[in-house]
C-alpha cells in the first residue's frame, strides 16, 4: 500500500516514474500499449512518405524526404526501447503489429497520391502529431517523456520542411497550386481525426489523465490544432474543405465542422484505403529479414563461445 501511495504522490507532484520504481500493473500495461502504438505508427508511417523517395522531383527534396523517413525509423527505435524499460520485447510487439493485434495511427492508412502529399503530411499530419506529443514531453513515465522530447524536436523540424515545400510549390505553376489544394482537401479531415474520437466517446481518457500519461483531452487538442492551422493555411493561400470553419470571437477560437466519425471507425476497424497494404508491407519486410536476424544472432553466439 505504501508503494502505491508513493507512486500516486510522485505522479501528482508531476515528478517522473522511472523503470525501477514500483508502478501499478494497469499503468504499466497502458503505457506499453500506448508507447507501442506510437512506435508502430512511426514505423508504418515510413511507408506513405517513403512511397515518394524514388520519385522526388529535386535532389534537395529527395535528401530531405529520405532523411525524414530515416528519422521515423529512429523514433520507432527509441520508442520500442522505452517499452523495453517496462518489460516489453520489441520482437513480440512487432509480431503483434504484423498480426494485426496492435494498432497504429489510422492516418497512415490513407494513400499518398501526389508529391504535394509529402508537404501536406509534413505540415498537417506532423503538425497534429506535435500537438498530441508536446504534452507527452511532460508525461509521468521518465523514459517516455525523454524520448518524446527528442521526437518532438525532429517532428517540428519535419513540419517546417513540409510547410516550406508547400510554400515553394504555391510560388510555382498553377498546376502545382492545384496539386497542393487537392492534397490539403484530402488530408484535412483525416488530420482532425488524429486526435481521436470526441471526448464523450473516448474510453481511456479519465484514468490516463489521472496517471498523467495523457494531459489534455482529444477535443482540447483538436481545437488547439485548428486554431494554429488556419492562419498557416491563409499564409499559404489554401483553404480547408469545411464550410463551418469560422472565427468565433466570443470563444476566442475557430468553430469547425464535425469530422465523419463513421469513416474514422471504418478505418480504425481495418477498412481504410491502405490498412491491408501497410501491414502486409511491414510483415513482408519482417519475414524477408528473418534469416538475416538469425544469422546475426548465430554469429554473435559463436563469437561469444569462442571468446
Amino acid at each position, binding site marked *: 500500500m505504501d508503494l502505491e501511495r508513493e507512486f500516486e504522490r510522485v505522479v501528482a507532484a508531476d515528478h517522473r516514474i522511472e523503470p525501477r520504481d514500483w508502478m501499478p500493473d494497469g499503468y504499466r500495461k497502458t503505457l506499453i500499449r500506448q508507447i507501442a502504438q506510437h512506435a508502430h505508427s512511426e*514505423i508504418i508511417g*515510413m*511507408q506513405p512518405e*517513403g512511397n515518394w*523517395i*524514388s*520519385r*522526388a*522531383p*529535386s*535532389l*534537395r527534396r*529527395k*535528401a530531405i524526404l*529520405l*532523411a525524414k*523517413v*530515416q528519422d521515423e*525509423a529512429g523514433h*520507432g*527505435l527509441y520508442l520500442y526501447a522505452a517499452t523495453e524499460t517496462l518489460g516489453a520485447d520489441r520482437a513480440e510487439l512487432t509480431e503483434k503489429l504484423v498480426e494485426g493485434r496492435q494498432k497504429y495511427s489510422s492516418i497512415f492508412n490513407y494513400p499518398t497520391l501526389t*508529391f504535394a502529399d509529402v508537404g501536406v503530411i509534413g505540415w498537417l499530419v506532423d503538425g497534429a502529431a*506535435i*500537438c498530441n506529443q*508536446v*504534452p507527452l*514531453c511532460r508525461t509521468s513515465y521518465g523514459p517516455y517523456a525523454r524520448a518524446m522530447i527528442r521526437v*518532438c*524536436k525532429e517532428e*517540428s*523540424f519535419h*513540419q*517546417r520542411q513540409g*510547410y516550406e515545400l508547400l510554400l*515553394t*510549390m504555391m510560388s*510555382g*505553376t498553377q*498546376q*502545382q497550386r492545384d496539386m497542393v489544394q487537392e492534397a490539403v482537401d484530402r488530408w484535412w479531415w483525416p488530420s482532425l481525426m488524429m486526435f481521436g474520437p470526441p471526448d464523450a466517446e473516448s474510453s481511456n481518457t479519465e484514468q490516463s489523465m489521472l496517471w498523467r500519461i495523457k494531459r489534455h483531452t482529444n477535443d482540447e487538442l483538436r481545437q*488547439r490544432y485548428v486554431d*494554429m492551422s488556419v*492562419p498557416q493555411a491563409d499564409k499559404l493561400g489554401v483553404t480547408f474543405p469545411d464550410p463551418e470553419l469560422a472565427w468565433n470571437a466570443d470563444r476566442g477560437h475557430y468553430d469547425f465542422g464535425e469530422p465523419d466519425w463513421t469513416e474514422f471507425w471504418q478505418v480504425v476497424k481495418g477498412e481504410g484505403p491502405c490498412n491491408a497494404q501497410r501491414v502486409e*508491407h*511491414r510483415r*513482408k*519486410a519482417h519475414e*524477408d*529479414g*528473418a*534469416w*538475416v*536476424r*538469425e*544469422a*546475426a*544472432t*548465430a*554469429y554473435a553466439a*559463436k563469437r561469444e563461445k569462442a571468446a
Partner: protein
Amino acid sequence: MDNAYDGLTEDSEEKHWAFGTGFSTALAGVDRAVPSGVDHDVLAVYCLMLGDDALIYSQRLAEWCSRAPELEEDVALANIALDLLGQARLLLTRAAEVEGADRDEDALAYLRDEHEFRNVRLAEIDCGPGPGGDFATTIARLLVMSTHRLALLQRLTGSLDPVLAAIAAKGVKEVAYHRDHAAQWVLRLAGGTEYSRERMVAGLERVWPFTDELFATHAVEAAVAEAGVGVDPATLRAEFDEVLDTVLRAADLDRPDVRQVAALAGRAGRDGVHTEALGFLLAEMQYVARSMPGAVW
C-alpha cells in the same frame, strides 16, 4: 505552455515553427576556380562520372527504406544512401559549374537520358530488395562499391581541383564507414547460419562480374589523372584486391569464380552504355520532374 509550438521554439522569431535550420554549406570557403591548364569539358565529364556513381547507387540503396531486416539496418542503409546523395549533389553541382552550360544539379539528374549517364553498371543493377538480389547481394555490392570509392576518394583528396579535393575529403570519412559496415555484415552473414553463408556466396557471385569495369580506364579518367585533378582507376586495383582479400579471408570465403560482364564493343557505363535496368530506374526517378515543366520544388 498553451501553444504546442511555443514550447519548442528556441531563439526563433517565428513562434509557430520550432527550431531554425542552421545548416552550413559543406564547401564554404573553397576556391571554385578551375585550375589553369585543365580542360573544362573533361573535368565536367569526370565530375559526372563520380557524381552519377553516387546518385544512381544512392537511388538503389534508398529502395531499402522501410524494407530492411531490422530497424537499425533501415537507419544505416538510409544513412549510406544519404551520404552518397550528398556527394552526388556536390559533384553534379561542380560538373554543371565547370561545364558552364546553364544547367544545375537537378537539370543533370532529371533531364539527361540513359546514354548521358556515366556511372559504372554496378551502381545501377538491382541487388535487392527487388528480385535482382537480397540483403546479402546488397552487402556484397556495398563492400565492392565502398572499397573502390574509398580508395578513389583517398587519392582524390590530393586533386589540384580544390573543389574535388574538398568533396573527396568529406567523402572519405563517410565511405570509410560504409566499407566498415559492409565488411561487418559479410563476416556476420558468412559466419552466421548455413543459409546466410549460401546467400553471401550467391551475393558476391551476383556482383563480381561487374568489378573489372570499376578499374577500366576511360579516356576522360586518363586525361584528368594526367592533369593532376583526377584518378586513374587502374591504379586502385591493388588496394582493392588487398582489402577484398582481407575481408574474404576473415569470412573464410573464396573470391567468386565467375566470368566478367564484358563491355559492348569496348563501351560500358563510363561511355553511357548501360544495362537494361537503368532505363527503368531513371523513368521512376525522373518522371515527376519531367512531367511538370516550369515547376519549382
